[in-house]
């Protein structure tokens, strides 16, 4: 069942004409003929959980916004910077009107009158496509004042970021959208109460909002029939790394993970096996080949000690040293830490230093203990989860591949050990 990817490669789908020919903006008409409360009820009935990473119930999030005439904002999080994730890119590039339609419907349910798409600065082509689609949507009266005579008005601005992973964190995104450095904020207050410009703000991921037209079309209950009891609907999965057919696939939540990795993505190259895989972007704890038969849904991934996250499966084959994977991951978070909270700023940097010591043979097995404890001290101690997002996968790698780390430490130390009779090391290395 394809809801988001149906007709995705149809030539011209990014134009209003073709999108409308495929039933586009019919859901908007249907929604505007309903009361906003009824639209919200459909969203809640659908059971749709946020597709950006946290998996929070979308309808509930909308219902958290205060009622009444206070100015409310809707922000679409199109920062998509989680390593391994590229689903929103394909959606925005090929079906920008689906996102715009979803935003307008959601803003109607939430009573928001101003909206923004915060798109990462690197997605130049996709931002241009969205801008062009927005011009067409405005001209057709789908965005702007008194949309289709409903009395509902909405402004929409495509706002381009400038390269910072942390701006995918919702409060970092808000600060960035206000023209500041993208530093996350203390929560509470939550954005639903005090978000953009201190006003009530609904923030949703691209895929979440793009799903809204489908929910209105087939009804909340119809949507809830797809997927599992607690993971409803379809999900875009970005598969990358050591697979034959990397790409985006729309799956029904709950299919076996093996079917995604080996069926859709074609499996690994001849003679190779899965060493580990990230089920939800590089922030998710790694799983091993023994976990491939788990259903791919929010709860099964959580039960296995990881998370569905953004739905980005990164496959690592058995020829890859785990140390290389750990270093890449740790360096990324050290680079992207905004520096506001000490455990994250220092913890990510020290983890990189310790991993580099392992690489150069300056580490002892005790360093693995220290490194594991550093991860524990980061988790839960910062304003946002960027530090946790390093600590969780690194912690999982140390736990699951401890032997390999220890072997590496011993091998490199042995290779670097001074020969008998050689002068003793002096200084820091002694």
């Amino acid at each position, binding site marked *: 069942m*394809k809801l988001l990817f149906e007709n995705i490669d149809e030539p011209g789908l990014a134009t209003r004409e073709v999108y409308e020919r495929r039933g586009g903006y019919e859901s908007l008409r249907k929604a505007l003929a309903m009361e906003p409360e009824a639209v919200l009820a459909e969203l809640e009935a659908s059971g749709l959980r946020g597709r950006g990473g946290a998996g929070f119930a979308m309808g509930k999030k909308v219902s958290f916004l205060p009622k009444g005439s206070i100015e409310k904002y809707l922000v679409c999080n199109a920062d998509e910077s989680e390593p391994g994730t590229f689903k929103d890119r394909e959606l925005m590039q090929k079906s920008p009107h689906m996102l715009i339609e979803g935003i307008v419907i959601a803003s109607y349910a939430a009573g928001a009158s101003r909206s923004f798409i915060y798109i990462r600065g*690197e997605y130049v082509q996709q931002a241009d496509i969205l801008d062009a689609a927005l011009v067409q949507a405005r001209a057709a009266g789908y965005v702007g004042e008194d949309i289709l005579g409903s009395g509902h008005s909405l402004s929409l601005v495509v706002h381009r970021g*400038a390269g910072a992973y942390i701006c995918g964190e919702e409060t970092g995104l808000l600060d960035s959208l206000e023209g500041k450095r993208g530093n996350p904020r203390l929560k509470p207050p939550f954005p639903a109460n005090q978000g953009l410009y201190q006003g009530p703000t609904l923030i949703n991921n691209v895929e979440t909002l793009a799903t809204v037209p489908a929910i209105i079309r087939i009804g909340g209950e119809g949507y809830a029939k797809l997927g599992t009891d607690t993971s409803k609907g379809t999900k875009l999965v970005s598969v990358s790394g050591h697979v034959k057919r990397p790409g985006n696939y729309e799956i029904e939540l709950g299919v076996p993970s093996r079917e995604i990795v080996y069926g859709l*993505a074609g499996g690994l190259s001849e003679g190779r096996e899965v060493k580990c895989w990230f089920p939800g972007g590089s922030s998710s704890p790694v799983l091993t080949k023994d976990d491939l038969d788990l259903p791919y849904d929010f709860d099964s991934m959580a039960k296995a000690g990881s998370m569905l996250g953004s739905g980005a499966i*990164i496959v690592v084959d058995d020829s890859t040293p785990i140390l290389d994977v750990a270093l890449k991951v740790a360096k990324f978070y050290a680079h992207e830490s905004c520096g506001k909270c000490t455990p994250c700023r220092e913890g990510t940097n020290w983890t990189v230093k310790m991993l580099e010591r392992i690489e150069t043979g300056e580490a002892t097995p005790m360093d693995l203990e220290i490194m594991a404890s550093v991860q524990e001290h980061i988790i839960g101690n910062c304003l946002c989860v960027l530090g946790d997002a390093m600590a969780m996968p690194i912690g999982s790698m140390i736990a699951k591949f401890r032997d390999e780390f220890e072997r590496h430490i011993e091998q490199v130390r042995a290779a670097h050990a001074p020969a008998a009779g050689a002068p003793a090391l002096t200084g820091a290395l002694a």
Partner: protein
Amino acid sequence: MTPKLRQEIEAKMALYPDRHSATLPALEAAQRVYGWCSPQALEEVAEAMDVTPAYLESVATFYDMLETEPAGRHSIYVCTNISCSLLGADELFRSIADAAGDDPEFNVRPFECLGACDIAPIASVDGVYVGPLSTEDVPQLLEDIRCERPVLPNKQLVKRPCADPGASA
């Protein structure tokens, strides 16, 4: 400041309830004109936006795409994050950096995940994504940029169909 740039910044400020929101678009526009967020560029944007240059500098230094030192006119961001590096991105980056050498036209940088792991390893050339790249593509890549031609037309991301076999059904 050129009247065109001032006009662009003023138009951006008008889009938001608070003019500060135009900071990133304004800096991006100024960088397009000056090549980087130079002290002069910051002074002029500050004047147009009625903010201090120090404020703009604090913002410019936070974001990877804003250059706070002189940089080549053509940016080549090579993704060296996990999915790309599993498929040889580190070698690719070194190859591009070596081939570009000290040509002042190029701004070759290793970059965090660019969101195109389906065509890993990839590079973004002035915003155009190309991949999957091998070191063999490097001479053509640089030649295309030097001649101001579309970069590796057969490897551009925007031309790729969706991987999902059910999508076109």
